[in-house]
């Protein structure tokens, strides 16, 4: 059916506020990834969920960032006490997550553009 969806598409917030970004992966995909893309920079890995395994949080830039994935489907990325340097496009991707296949294709959502004033 539908591809990866993300909401909101744009978010403007004031420095110090908390924000929540949502990702709906493709149905049946067990792997979910969050990346962010800053102006002039490449995509930066943030966090990875695979099935019921503990997430790989090694890309989160600070403890202000957290993510959860409920019921193996929808994921929420939370940024607490936002800073201006958090301004970026936050991209979510999902993949089938076939066991032992490290090459399965990632399908990206359109992203959420976050602006911290």
């Amino acid at each position, binding site marked *: 059916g539908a591809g990866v969806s993300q909401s909101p598409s744009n978010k403007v917030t004031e420095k110090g506020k908390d924000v929540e970004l949502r990702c709906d992966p493709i149905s049946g995909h067990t792997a979910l990834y969050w990346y962010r893309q800053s102006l002039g920079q490449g*995509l930066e890995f943030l966090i990875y969920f695979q099935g019921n395994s503990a997430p*790989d949080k090694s890309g989160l830039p600070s403890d202000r960032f957290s993510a959860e994935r409920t019921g193996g489907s929808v994921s929420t990325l939370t940024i607490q006490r936002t800073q201006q340097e958090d301004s970026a496009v936050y991209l979510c991707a999902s993949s089938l997550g076939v066991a032992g296949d*490290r*090459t399965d294709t990632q399908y990206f959502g359109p992203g959420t553009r976050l602006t911290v004033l």
Partner: protein
Amino acid sequence: SQKIEQNSEALNIQEGKTATLTCNYTNYSPAYLQWYRQDPGRGPVFLLLIRENEKEKRKERLKVTFDTTLKQSLFHITASQPADSATYLCALPRTQAGTALIFGKGTTLSVSS
């Protein structure tokens, strides 16, 4: 840690010519390498994957090569069209055993008619 360099930020070519984009990596040889296309305001779209034991992979007008000795991949678009104008990203697994990716900054291709 692994680093990726896409050595041209922008590439301008005429319609009908072949575009060649370069991706170099600095550390361990990855098990595979991927190329994505990204249009403004959209997420990346997967194009091709090439494994470490493959020298070349083709898909329609696209060709990717992978040279583990040079630590380099070349991405070719033959008979380029204005619709091919976009940013092209090279991506590798973030760790040798992982699936999360590390991306290059991309090369923005402009094809003029």
